[in-house]
């Protein structure tokens, strides 16, 4: 059977599949569907310094082969997450990646400092790209200097490797990747959502109360693949790839593009069993295309 192991900074994965941040909460709900120990890793929902309620509803809308979301980083705050959510995750033998967000460099630093100390957390995913919160998200994710500065500061305090999650809403993704790489990022996570909109024909206004939302799902897969490929040509940094994955074939496509592991977001909503299903079919799919391991497939893309 094809070897699914992947070894990345801080993350020893039994397989390259992890649920993406924001699409899996803190794992509780999905643990009622299947044994979370099957997962390669789990990326938990974004943590901020204080509790946040997020944006007004409606927060989601459907688009062709995709969806928009503008949750607005609703979360109970880093302290509550550490106190109430992480203990539950301790009971699983799965590396946990903490997604860190904030409105200021100080907030990112504070959250990273706190959460990266927790033994269950194996890596930090720095969410510089959430386009929904007006007070800063867009800045961090689209300006290379600001992103580099943030990465540097977070790296200074983080006790775990830091994966910077890139926003696709930029002219030059390679420039962004290089900036955070030079600033010390241990890896990249890409892509976050593309900013989009839908209109309610009856109400004659945007469906999403926040007007714009982040586009995710299969619709964005070709953009994710292109960006990962471009960054892979330019850099050697580990990449956790995501954007529209719904099948083991998609995973192979992301590996060929240059991803080292992948995350599945939106597809969890339509099929709560998508992660274990993809993990189950991955070995056969790899073999079908002539690969004896994830590693071999990943290198083929070079």
């Amino acid at each position, binding site marked *: 059977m094809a070897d699914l192991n992947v070894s990345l900074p801080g993350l020893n994965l039994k397989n390259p599949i992890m649920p993406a941040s924001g699409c899996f909460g803190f794992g509780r*709900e999905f643990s009622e569907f299947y044994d979370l120990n099957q997962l390669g890793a789990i990326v938990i929902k974004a943590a901020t310094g204080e509790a946040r309620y997020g944006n007004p509803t409606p927060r*989601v809308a459907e688009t062709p*082969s995709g969806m928009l979301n503008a949750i607005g980083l*609703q979360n109970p705050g880093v302290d509550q997450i550490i106190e109430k959510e992480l203990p539950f995750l301790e009971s699983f033998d799965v590396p946990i990646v903490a997604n860190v967000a904030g409105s200021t460099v100080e907030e990112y630093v504070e959250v990273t400092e706190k959460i990266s100390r927790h033994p269950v957390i194996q890596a930090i995913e720095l969410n510089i790209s959430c386009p929904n919160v007006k007070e800063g998200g867009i800045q961090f994710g689209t300006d290379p200097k600001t992103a580099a500065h943030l990465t540097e500061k977070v790296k200074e305090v983080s006790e775990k490797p830091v994966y910077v999650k890139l926003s696709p809403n930029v002219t030059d993704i390679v420039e962004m990747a290089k900036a955070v790489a030079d600033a010390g990022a241990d890896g990249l996570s890409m892509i976050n959502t593309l900013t989009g909109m839908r209109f309610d024909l009856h109400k004659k206004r945007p469906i999403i109360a926040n007007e714009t939302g982040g586009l995710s799902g299969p619709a964005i897969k070709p953009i994710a693949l292109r960006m990962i490929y471009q960054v892979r040509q330019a850099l050697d940094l580990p990449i956790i790839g995501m954007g529209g994955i719904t099948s083991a074939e998609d995973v192979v496509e992301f590996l060929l593009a240059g991803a080292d592991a992948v995350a599945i977001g939106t597809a*969890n909503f339509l099929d709560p069993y998508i992660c274990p299903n993809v993990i189950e079919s991955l070995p056969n799919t790899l073999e079908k295309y002539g690969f004896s391991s994830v590693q071999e497939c990943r290198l083929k893309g070079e």
Partner: protein
Amino acid sequence: MMKEQWMEVLNNRPIALDTYEMTLHGKLASSMTQPGQFLHLKIGDGFRHVLRRPLSIADVDQEDQTVKIIYKVIGEGTKWLSQAKPGNQIHVLGPRGHGFPVENVADQHIYLIGGGVGVPPLYYLGKQLAENNRVTAVLGFQTKDAVFYEEKFQELGETMILTDDGSYGKRGLVTDVLESKMDLYYSCGPLGMLHAVTRKLNDVKGYVSLEERMGCGIGACFACVCKTTDPNDERGYRKICKDGPVFPAKEVVLWQI
């Protein structure tokens, strides 16, 4: 407890203007005991429609292992449902959420207050309540052609139909006829109606069922939250898909933005 299954369409027929009643058959039906819960239905093949559609359980027959849903054709998802033929399979996740509390409710005079496609869950609820209680249904529709299930509700108790345009029943809004001297009410319908109902029946104990656009439908994505009225509430919000869709009328904020 977390279940998903292909269910077979037994019947799918128009029962009112743009409104269909679909009967689904499958083992999943046996877990659908609580009125007010919803089914989360997959639309079409593959991932063209990445979001499932929430539809309330309108009736369940445990013996036949069938469940009925009643839906209005709004957009692509419900249009696709309306084209399903007997024998087609539909992928169902459910029953989801927390429904109307019915345990230990007896000897009460109860309002069932529904508006439009908020009416369906009240029927399965009414069937359960009518056994030990006196039930009065107040159902509002836009127009005559949109009315459905009138006779079925009449079998449960007194039933008043109202239409916005007066083309059938009484003209007006459900709140026009509501009286405060009831023991309990259960309501489902548009937010504006729920808001008016809770204000009018301010002194009566009641439950409301809310709607919101959903992402996951299982409590993981925070798409479907609503605010709690109590400023000291530990979380400050509820998830409609998981904590709801039914809430005590006083617990959640019905009018925001």
